[in-house]
């Protein structure tokens, strides 16, 4: 704690603004106490970045800039943040601008991940904006020597009862906003919202649909050159030979960069770089080692690798057996983020400062990693987020940033743009980890779950940078950085064990997390982390148990759930879908249902679905899906609906089609032919999303809440359609046909 109070006092001593008094008063009281108890922290990311002017700046011309340390990834939060700030500041939506993650300008909010942006940064901006508004009112009150209650704010001005008006720019002077946030804010009554809660069109879409510069891929700095990397053909491959002399003579080639196993080429024009890359790749001979496990035997591979076992839930006597018992094993393959645009970055090394424009999810962690890799002080490295193609977790973004930095160091002063090729993204991105779950439960005579046992085997779900060792370029340099020791992400959020603890009331329950440190395949964070597979497993198993209980799946879930918000979400999805007990799907169709609260502490989501199965070919198609979501206070309902629609379709694609393939040495899913995903002929007839708004309640985030429920809902609908239960993801047409034929 420092600084703000002094600034406050200086101002307070001169004035009499009510709020400013409260600033100094709380501090004065704290000073008087012999052993001050720790002050309550302000909400969201204000707890770690408490100065108001880290979030909101007002210039003398009344222009307002809002800062967030989070990165817009296509989720649309830039618009939501602008709504929040406009609402709490009482200014028109269009009068603000929002600056996103930049180590030179914004707060360090770590990664943009875990559906945290609204709760961390949205909450910080909301409270900062409200506190700034109060400071402005207090300043107007001081100037007119009137009580603050005599003022209102409207359209960027503080207005007195007699109509006297001050623009915000008039009121802000010097370091007035350089004060620490208070633990609580005078937030607006949600009943009075004018901008929040409305479907404001996203600010980024017009440029994206008219060819504006919208992505890091679109950057064209003066004098910029193009680079391509040549990656090893497999994990651990060593560069044996590489005659670069012919490549150096190719048209446009400016430089070939070789540093150990790191190979890259720089050319004046982009396609010259691509051609030189092809030539360089052909010139390189690699020594490869077979290190990969058996792709078709992941169940055995994962359960036989050494693991650290941890019981994360122990309730009652989970060994107690009811009348009817059931066991099942579910598996998930490695899956790809599959960004449509391969990763890209631009870097420039000028006057000893490395600037990197990147679509990373964490500019500060990337700065740390790149600084370490280049042996530079972090203060000499600046990482600026610029949008990329959607990433859905840790894709090649950070690696491309490191590539660009390592290459740009060789060409001082020259901006270098690197973009990966399709096969590089497909083979080198860190995949979503494969997982295994084993479930065992039993029912009592009345169809209530008596005991529940859940075990999950998984790698870590985050190998994100922080250190250089997480970045491919640093791993491949002549003096390589070691891949850091993997660590499980701690609960309550968890990684492999995210959502492994059931939300339902089971009197006897045990959940064990087997954390596997060895990573034969490069893995890291993918949207929803372990929650995708754990919810798929739990919610599939709930359906199986409902089946042996002879219960309707929706009623069976409600039977085991107390959480009133969860119950409401389930009831809403069921009702809007037209779900009813004893329902019969049309021939070759099935209905499915699933529910989860993401991380057991964020947004609630239930998905009801109808699928169709071609019994001859096994081809599945999601016909329609209906979701209900409670994400707390809704800021932009259309943005939230867009996120959930996308979650359902993406999760459907993961669930029905996707697995990374490999032989004993190389990744063999190298493009969209070998890693097929959803195409338009399999798009549902309709997807409906119903929001349950919770005015005034905390933002819960929404980016990842749909992944698990959508997967299980589809799996349950397939089981309903075919009478066969599939537990090994993805639920491909071949597996469905084989199950039907069996």
């Amino acid at each position, binding site marked *: 704690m420092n600084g703000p109070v002094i600034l406050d006092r200086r101002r307070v001593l001169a004035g009499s603004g009510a709020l400013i008094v409260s600033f100094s008063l709380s501090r004065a009281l704290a000073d008087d106490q012999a052993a001050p108890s720790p002050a309550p922290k302000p909400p969201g990311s204000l707890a770690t970045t408490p100065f108001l002017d880290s979030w909101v700046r007002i210039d003398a011309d009344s222009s307002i800039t809002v800062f967030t340390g989070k990165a817009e990834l296509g989720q649309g939060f830039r618009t939501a943040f602008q709504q929040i700030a406009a609402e709490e500041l009482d200014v028109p939506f269009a009068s603000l601008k929002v600056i996103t993650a930049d180590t030179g300008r914004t707060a360090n909010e770590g990664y943009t991940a875990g559906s945290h942006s609204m709760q961390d940064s949205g909450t910080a901006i909301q409270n900062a904006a409200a506190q700034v508004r109060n400071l402005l009112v207090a300043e107007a009150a001081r100037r007119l020597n009137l009580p603050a209650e005599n003022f209102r704010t409207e359209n960027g001005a503080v207005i007195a009862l007699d109509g006297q008006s001050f623009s915000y720019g008039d009121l802000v002077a010097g370091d007035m906003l350089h004060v620490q946030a208070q633990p609580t804010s005078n937030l607006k009554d949600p009943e009075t919202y004018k901008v929040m809660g409305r479907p404001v069109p996203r600010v980024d879409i017009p440029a994206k*649909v*008219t060819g504006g510069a919208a992505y890091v*891929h679109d950057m064209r700095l003066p004098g910029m050159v193009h680079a391509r990397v040549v990656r090893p053909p497999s994990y651990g491959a060593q560069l044996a030979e590489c005659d670069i002399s012919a490549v150096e003579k190719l048209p446009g080639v400016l430089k070939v960069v070789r540093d150990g196993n790191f190979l890259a080429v720089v050319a004046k*024009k982009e396609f010259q770089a691509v051609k030189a890359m092809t030539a360089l790749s052909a010139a390189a001979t690699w020594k490869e080692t077979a290190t990969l496990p058996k792709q078709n035997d992941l169940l055995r591979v994962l359960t036989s690798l050494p693991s650290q076992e941890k019981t994360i839930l122990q309730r009652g006597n989970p060994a107690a057996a009811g009348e009817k018992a059931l066991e099942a094993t579910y598996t998930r393959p490695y899956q790809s983020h599959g960004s449509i645009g391969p990763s890209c970055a631009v870097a420039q090394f000028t006057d000893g400062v490395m600037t990197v424009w990147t679509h990373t999810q964490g500019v500060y962690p990337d700065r740390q990693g790149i600084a370490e890799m280049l042996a530079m002080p972090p203060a000499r490295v600046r990482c600026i987020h610029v949008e990329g193609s959607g990433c859905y977790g840790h894709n090649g973004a950070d690696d491309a940033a490191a590539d660009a930095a390592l290459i740009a160091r060789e060409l001082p002063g020259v901006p270098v743009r690197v973009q990966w090729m399709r096969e590089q993204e497909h083979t080198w991105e860190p995949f979503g980890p494969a997982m295994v779950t084993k479930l065992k439960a039993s029912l009592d005579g009345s169809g209530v779950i008596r005991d529940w046992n859940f075990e999950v085997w998984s790698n870590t779900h985050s190998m994100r940078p922080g250190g250089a060792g997480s970045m491919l370029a640093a791993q491949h340099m002549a003096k390589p950085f070691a891949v850091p020791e993997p660590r499980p992400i701690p609960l309550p959020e968890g990684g492999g064990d995210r959502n492994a603890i059931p939300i339902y009331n089971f009197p006897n329950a045990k959940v064990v997390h087997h954390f596997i440190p060895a990573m034969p395949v490069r893995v890291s964070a993918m949207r929803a982390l372990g929650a995708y597979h754990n919810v798929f497993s739990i919610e599939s198993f709930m359906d199986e148990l409902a089946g042996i209980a002879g219960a309707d799946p929706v009623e069976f879930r409600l039977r085991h759930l107390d959480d009133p918000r969860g119950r409401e979400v389930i009831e809403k999805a069921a009702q809007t879908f037209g779900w009813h007990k004893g329902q019969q799907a049309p021939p070759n169709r099935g209905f499915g249902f699933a529910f989860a609260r993401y991380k057991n502490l964020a947004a609630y989501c239930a998905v009801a679905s109808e699928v169709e199965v071609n019994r001859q070919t096994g081809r599945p198609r999601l016909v329609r899906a209906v979701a209900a979501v409670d994400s707390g206070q809704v800021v932009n309902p259309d943005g939230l609906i867009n996120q959930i*629609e996308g979650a359902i379709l993406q999760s459907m694609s993961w669930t029905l089609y996707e697995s990374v393939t490999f032989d004993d040495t190389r990744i063999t899913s190298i493009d*969209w032919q070998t890693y097929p995903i959803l195409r*338009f002929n399999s798009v549902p007839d309709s997807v409906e999303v119903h929001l349950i708004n919770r005015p005034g309640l905390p933002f819960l985030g929404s980016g990842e809440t749909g992944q698990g429920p959508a997967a299980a809902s589809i799996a349950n609908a397939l089981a309903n359609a075919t009478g066969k239960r599939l537990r090994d993801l993805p639920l491909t047409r071949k597996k469905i046909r084989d199950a039907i034929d069996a």
Partner: protein
Amino acid sequence: MMTLKVNGRDHQVDAEADTPLLYVLRDDLALNAAKFGCGLGQCGACTVIVDGKAVLSCVTPLLLLEGKQVTTLEGLGSIETPAPIQRAFIEEQAAQCGYCIAGMMMRAQALLQRNAKPTDDEIRAEMEPHLCRCGTHMRILRAIRRAAHLMQTADASTVQRSAQ
């Protein structure tokens, strides 16, 4: 040096003949809309219109484009005066990350130019070469239907204006 007609204007392009159109558009002409997605003709992100037809610019070499008319998303309208297809995508908020969207819009535009009232099945079949990873498909389909409607309305009002 070759003359390439893009968005109604002739450009003198100094690029090797095997250079895919995509790189010429992005690198030589500084046009952003067509995107590199795969370089293999598998995803549709690079789609532009050549002589009225949707073409994958990442696999179309420059030498095949002599005397042809190339249209990119920039040639349809601008942020200030969006074309019907652009208005439709904005009104339907049919983007998440948006990286695939420009390519989607160009194929939809080509479709609507030759078939003003496509059925939903025709739209889906036409869009089959295109991948979207964010799962924005429902909105993309809605936006294409809206664009069809807007184009007809625009045509009708043009007819009306010229009749006056």
